[in-house]
């Protein structure tokens, strides 16, 4: 199974021959090393001249893009914050304005109401005074009439009883009775 016999056999695919270790067949090391060096040089140049700079550029570009995008996003976020603040301010203003208008309207209505109430009160007072006066007049009229009628009636009764009615006394008597 020495390596030289194996090398002489070329390839040991034949089942009858000893398999050996192809790795220790030094006759093909030169060939493998040569092609390996060719391969490595090709790979090195492909990688270092084309692939790696390109990927590095792409990665750098992406990093730049991401940084820019993050900055833009920050800016937009700030803008959105500002817009929100403005919106809130507008809302507060509008609310205050509404409050003010409501207050004004309320005050106006109150004034009108007060005026109307005052006027109504005055009218009512005037009417009441008038009515009272009328009632007083009527009452005075009625008392006078009663006095006259009482005096007349008393005079007549006295006359009917056969006496002579003194107008003055009758009157005084009626007065006294009226007071009682």
């Amino acid at each position, binding site marked *: 199974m020495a390596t030289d016999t194996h090398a002489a056999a*070329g*390839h*040991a*695919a034949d*089942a009858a021959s*000893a*398999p*050996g*270790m*192809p*790795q*220790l*067949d030094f*006759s*093909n*090391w*030169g*060939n*493998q*090393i*040569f*092609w*390996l*060096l*060719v*391969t*490595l040089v*090709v*790979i*090195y140049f*492909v*990688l*270092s001249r*084309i*692939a*790696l700079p*390109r*990927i*590095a*550029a*792409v*990665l750098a*570009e*992406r990093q730049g*893009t991401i940084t820019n995008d993050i900055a833009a996003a920050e800016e937009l976020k700030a803008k959105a914050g500002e817009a929100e603040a403005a919106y809130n301010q507008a809302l507060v203003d509008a609310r205050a304005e509404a409050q003010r208008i409501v207050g004004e309207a309320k005050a106006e209505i109150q004034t009108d109401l007060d005026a109307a109430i005052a006027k109504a009160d005055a009218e009512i007072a005037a009417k009441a005074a008038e009515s009272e006066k009328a009632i007083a007049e009527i009452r005075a009229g009625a008392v006078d009439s009663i006095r006259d009628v009482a005096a007349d009636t008393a005079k007549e009764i006295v006359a009917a009883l056969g006496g002579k009615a003194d107008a003055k006394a009758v009157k005084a008597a009626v007065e006294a009775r009226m007071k009682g």
Partner: protein
Amino acid sequence: MASEVHGADEGGLVFHPMDQFTVKPLFGGDHIGMFTITNATLWMALAVVGLVAMMVFGSSRRAVIPTRAQSIAELAYGFIFKMVEDVAGKDAVRFFPYIMTLFMFIVFSNFLGLIPMSFTTTSHFAVTVVLALLVFVTVTAVGFAKNGAKFLALFWVSSAPMALRPVLAVIELISYFVRPVSHSIRLAGNVMAGHAVIKVFAAFAAALVVNEIPTAVGIIVTPLSILGITALYALEVLVAFIQAYVFAILTCVYLRDALHPSH
């Protein structure tokens, strides 16, 4: 080797776990000269093709939002770049293309070697020894170029007691020169072991029919060995990546030693 080792039952089973590593000329002839196109050449070329397809054509659109192929290329780039930076240090970044070359070549060779009937270039010591020696020579050259004679401080353990230092220096020196040996044999051995074991299981999988006669034992052995092949194949996929990673990371460790020899 099979017939006299195994019993009569398995007399027809043929084990040639190492045949898959044979280097053969592709275009006839038995002689393998320096420049003969062999299957090793073919699979190395396929590794280059795969690498170009992934790293060059994959990234050819230079898209900011990457396509799938491009993100794989970027992933590989970022993975190795970060490893070089973390393990070997920031000043080792100029060796990044070199380490990337080693890593990509090993990764592609390992994975292409997992294709059934293919040839695994990294299973050959001729290949891994050259890769390891390249690293060894580079690291030593860089160490002396960067640090001059101070590079020898790597072998002079200044934290040890004075009496022990010469002994440790000898040990360090030996371990330094053993580095390329273990570096190369680890890769080739791992790859070779996995492939050979898969091949042995594959031979057992043929136990169902031996010498064109169905066998009873095959009913159990064949499904078990097919299961074994599947499991080992999964393990080999893992090993294919991890060995490439280990090779690259050890290169980074050696580079760090060369750039910063004090310890």
